């Protein structure tokens, strides 16, 4: 069980690193796309377009800071509240595996939501930052539910 847990968590960690790298690359591309829009709009004299691009640029920076500074702190805080290995025997191992996997999946889901939001902001679509926050809230709620369900399951299945 420990090996399976380690393997799955390594896979999720690599996915996290890849997603974070892609997030950074796409954030920079979105930034230069917005700067291109600002320069062309200022030449054309389109004031509204300039301000839209400036606000999109700011939103990209805010989403990047949220993704890189906020999400890891949220995941750390929630993961420390998840009951890991209560009891003993297979239930304990299963609890440890489950808490690790829940934390990993929730972290990836939150980063994916931020990535989608940043992509949407970069192409000038309606800001989906609210959707990203809702998805983060869903992930947090799922982790809290799992935190409550794990001890109940251990109690129901019997612990020593």
């Amino acid at each position, binding site marked *: 069980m420990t090996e399976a847990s380690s393997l799955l968590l390594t896979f*999720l960690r690599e996915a*996290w690193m890849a997603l*974070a790298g892609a997030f950074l690359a796409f954030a920079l591309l979105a930034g230069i796309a917005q700067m291109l829009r600002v320069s062309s709009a200022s030449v054309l004299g389109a004031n509204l377009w300039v301000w839209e691009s400036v606000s999109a640029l700011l939103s990209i920076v805010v989403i990047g800071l949220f993704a890189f*500074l906020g999400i*890891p702190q949220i995941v750390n805080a929630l993961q420390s509240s998840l009951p890991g290995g209560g009891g003993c025997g297979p239930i304990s191992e299963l609890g440890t595996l489950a808490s690790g996997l829940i934390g*990993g999946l929730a972290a990836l889901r939150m980063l994916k939501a931020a990535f989608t939001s940043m992509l949407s902001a970069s192409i000038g679509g309606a800001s989906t930052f609210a959707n990203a926050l809702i998805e983060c809230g869903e992930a947090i709620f799922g982790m809290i539910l799992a935190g409550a369900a794990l001890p109940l399951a251990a109690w129901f299945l019997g612990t020593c």
Partner: protein
Amino acid sequence: MFDPIMEQILAIARDAWAFMAGLLIVVALLGGLYFVLQGTAGMAFGGSRMTSMAIIGVVGLVIIVLFAFLFLPQIGELLKNFQPEAPF
């Protein structure tokens, strides 16, 4: 496992960055030419407001391009420094 995919994504992103940086320079040069034309036309028939607007436009365009080429890489470095390890 994700390294080959990451390499592909980064290669595409680098190409896109170079393309957009080139496009930004082209747009800025065209805009600068337009403002120069506006300024000279204004000077030719005594349109002082037109000339001053053209000068302001050129200065603004230079500021925007400098902002794009100096500020964006700094933001990238900042975010790169903040890039977190997996928190699990």
